[in-house]
Each structure stands twice: as structure tokens, then as C-alpha cells.
């Protein structure tokens, strides 16, 4: 573990842990809404911000946050209208985002290595300022997701019911869009644009194999995200692999292991004789007896 005596590795580890905790806490709402891949799309849009930042010599991360927030709010407004053409609008936004990013990066003096850092993540280059940005934004996302859990759960589970409950549905949806954009941008430093959704979604998919409730799923997903982030950085340090990809590989490995274990457990329980539960009354139609 001597590698962590280097400060840059320690910064990489801390950044990864914050993101590992925050990304699934947000991702669970996206999964519940069946928008699991939205993070991916917003990441594409954020890339245009990165390109603009590199071209104009301003902070790529700030520009990425701005581009991602605009993209996320646009997507949310399209979704809200519920038009079928929303699908096409999303495609335009996503591919426009990534193409715009590549063109703008090409126009700037940056090398392709610079673009790679955003596409695949560059945790080990995390500066102390970066770490502060990641920590502040990550903790803000985390607190929002936990504090507003009942309301966000209600909106993601049944939007019409939430509306009749008098909840500020639109504000909550936009809040979710903006926090998604922020999470995507800070996670971009860790795992890169192309792997962001994995960190938001895979721990949730793993957790829900074995959990029974929403709160338990959220807690388990955050624990899994934390584990994948920590173990991924450690793996990267000892085996000299790419940190971002290592984190995602470990998250997916946990998914496979948990799925197999859960399937095995269910098989064991099925073969063991169980006390018969009280039989459900037959589905009948009234007036039919």
C-alpha cells in the first residue's frame, strides 16, 4: 500500500471515494425513472463544454458544468412534453455534444492526450483544487439526494401522484437534472465521459438483486460504489491499470458475483421445504359467484 504515500495517489483515492458514494445515490433515481443512460448523454454534452474550455483557455471543468446543466435541463424539458420526437431530440443533443467537443478540442492547441483525459478519466492528475471542487460538489449532491429522498422517490415512482400531492414536481425534476449534470462533470475527472453511467447505474443494479426496499437499495448501492472506487484505485496502483476503467470493471465484477450468489441462494431456498404461505384468494370477478 506504499503507493498511497504519494500525494497524487491519495488525492485520486479521495476523489474516487467521493464520486463512488455520490454517483449511485443519484443514479438510483435515474434507474427508478428508467433513465439509466441519461448520464451518458449528459456526459456527451459536457464534452462540448470541455472543448470550449480548452479552446478559449478557461477552466474546462467549469465550462463542462455549464454545458451539462444546459443539456440536462433541455433534456428534462423535452421529456416533460412527452413527445415521441423527444427521442430524436435526445439523439441530436447527444451526438451534437460529442461531435462539438471533438471539433472544439481539435481547434484548440490541446493534444489528443488531453481529450483522452476527459473521455476515459485522469484521476491521477487530480490537483488539490480539483479535489476541493470534487469534494464540495460531491457532498452537495449526496446531501441533496439523501435529504430529499421521500420527495424524489415519490416523483420518480409516480409523477402524477406527486403532482396531486402538491409537490413541486417540475422543480424537483429540474433539480434532478442539474445534480445529474454536476455529478457527471465531477465523475468525468474520475472515470471519463464514456464510463460515467456505469458508476451511477451498476451499483444500483447490483444492490437491487438482494434488497427489498428503496432505502436499503440506496444504502447498499452507495456502499458498493464506495467499494468499487476504493478497490479500483488500489488495483490501478498495484497493477498499473487505468484507474477509471478499473473502478468500472470492479463495479461490474461485483454485479456478476452478487447476481450469481443471489441466484444460488434462491435455488437453495427453493429446494428446502418451506412452510406453505396462506393461499391467495383466487382472482375472481364480482357478481361471478
Amino acid at each position: 500500500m506504499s503507493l498511497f504515500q504519494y500525494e497524487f495517489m491519495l488525492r485520486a483515492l479521495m476523489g474516487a471515494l467521493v464520486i463512488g458514494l455520490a454517483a449511485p445515490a443519484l443514479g438510483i433515481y435515474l434507474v427508478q425513472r428508467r433513465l439509466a443512460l441519461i448520464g451518458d448523454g449528459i456526459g456527451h454534452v459536457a464534452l462540448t463544454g470541455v472543448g470550449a474550455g480548452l479552446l478559449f483557455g478557461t477552466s474546462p471543468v467549469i465550462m463542462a458544468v455549464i454545458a451539462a446543466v444546459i443539456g440536462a435541463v433541455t433534456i428534462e424539458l423535452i421529456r416533460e412534453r412527452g413527445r415521441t420526437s423527444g427521442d430524436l431530440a435526445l439523439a441530436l443533443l447527444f451526438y451534437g455534444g460529442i461531435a462539438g467537443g471533438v471539433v472544439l478540442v481539435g481547434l484548440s492547441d490541446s493534444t489528443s492526450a488531453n481529450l483522452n483525459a476527459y473521455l476515459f478519466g485522469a484521476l491521477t492528475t487530480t490537483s488539490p483544487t480539483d479535489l476541493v471542487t470534487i469534494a464540495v460538489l460531491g457532498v452537495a449532491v449526496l446531501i441533496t439526494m439523501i435529504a430529499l429522498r421521500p420527495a424524489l422517490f415519490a416523483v420518480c415512482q409516480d409523477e402524477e401522484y406527486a403532482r396531486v400531492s402538491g409537490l413541486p414536481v417540475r422543480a424537483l425534476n429540474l433539480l434532478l437534472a442539474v445534480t445529474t449534470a454536476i455529478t457527471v462533470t465531477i465523475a468525468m475527472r474520475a472515470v471519463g465521459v464514456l464510463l460515467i453511467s456505469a458508476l451511477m447505474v451498476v451499483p444500483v443494479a447490483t444492490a437491487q438483486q438482494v434488497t427489498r426496499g428503496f432505502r436499503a437499495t440506496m444504502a447498499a448501492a452507495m456502499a458498493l460504489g464506495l467499494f468499487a472506487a476504493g478497490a479500483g484505485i488500489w488495483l490501478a496502483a498495484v497493477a498499473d491499470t487505468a484507474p477509471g476503467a478499473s473502478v468500472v470493471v470492479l463495479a461490474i465484477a461485483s454485479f456478476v458475483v452478487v447476481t450469481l450468489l443471489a441466484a444460488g441462494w434462491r435455488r437453495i431456498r427453493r429446494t428446502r421445504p418451506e412452510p406453505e404461505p396462506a393461499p391467495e384468494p383466487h382472482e375472481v370477478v364480482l357478481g361471478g359467484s
Partner: protein
Amino acid sequence: MTPEVITVTHGVVGYDGRPVLRDVSLTVSAGEVVAILGANGSGKSTLIRAVLGLVPLSSGSVTLFGEPASRFRQWHRIGYVPQRLGAGSGVPATVAEVVASGRLARRGVLRPPGRADRAAVAEALRAVGLADRAKDPVATLSGGQQQRTLIARALAGRPELLVLDEPTAGVDAASQEAFAEALRAFVDGGGTVLLVAHELGPLQPLISRAVVVHQGLIAHDGAVPEPAGHHAAPDHDHVHPHCPEEPAGLWGTP
């Protein structure tokens, strides 16, 4: 005279230019149990969705508890029971978690749930006979039990008005009885009910007034009409699909 809980005045609703409700007027007073009946596609579900503000009126007006719907903010006075559990799933949720959403109208977005919220959730689950399933994932429940979960969610907010969209469609007999029981307790406590139904079953004795919607108009407003045609047959099997264009006329003329 009892206060008016819901009024709809010359309400018109259209989807993409096709009129679904044409000039509908309806008043529900406190303590009434009003059933909206009609064939599939008659506009009966649209009527309650318009009352709740889920679909916009293209003309006419709605008031809730004496207040124009656009200015109405006391949503905790209304408990809404949709036809089925929302599409948002995938992530497991326990019965108690779903029912706890019913407290949000009272508590607001920012305040964390407290003891009163937990007590109300437990009481609502008891009222629908699901207290022993509180910690089970809703996805493992039968259709009827899921419907009861949604009713418990509405009751947990301790509303004065319950609005239910086809609460008994495809629900097993035990759940229908448990549901009728919960509704009776709610009405005995002074509650007002507006429900959409295809057939009333064990709810029939509770209903104080029936409104029949036919081709976007109110065709009958008064006593519960006798079932006609094949609906009256004792072995009538109610399984036809919910298609919007079903030929109207099952309820005949008033």
C-alpha cells in the same frame, strides 16, 4: 346546505383536437359518495383527471373546496388513488415506503418524516388489511394488494376527499371486500368520495349518487342505474380490453 367539495362547470377536454369531454357540469358535496360510470372511452377517467388538474380544460372551470383549481394549494385535503402503481419501478420499494409518499402532501418536501408520519402509515396499512406486508416489496404483492397499497397511500395523508380511478378493476374478491371496508370507514368518518368504476360490486351500498358519462356528456345523474344487457348476467366475465373506441351504449339512455 353542505359545502361543495368539487364543482365542474361546462368542462371541455380534448386530446389533440379530439373532444373527450364535451360540456360536463358536476357538483360533489361534502359527505357524498359519487360513482362515475360509463363504458371504456366514455371520458369518465378524463373527468376525474381534469378535476385533479392532470389534464387541462380547454374551456369551463373546476373548483376544489370552493377555490378555483388554479389557485388551490391545500392538496393534503385530497387523496388520489390511480388505476395502478406508477410505471417507475425496477428499483424495489417496500409497501411502507410507497404508503409513506402519502404523507408528503401534509409534510412538504423538506421536513423529514417523524413519529406522526410513521403512525399514519401504520394506521393506513391496518385500514386496508396490509399491516403484515409493510416490509415486503410491492412487486411481490398481488394486483389487488397493490391496489390496496395505493389506497393506503391516499389514506395516510388523512384526506377529506378521496378520488379513485377504477379501484376495483381486476382486483380479487378478498381485496374488493377489504377495499369496501376501508372506504366505508372513511365515509363514516365524514369523508367525501369520487370514484370511477366499471362496475360497483361490493361498493354498491356505499354509493349515494351515480353519474353516467356517455360520449363525453353526462347522461345520467342520480340513483345508481340497474345494470343492463350482458352486464346484468350473474356470470358476466369482465375482461374486455381497455380500448378507447369501444362502441358506446352499454348503459343505454337515462
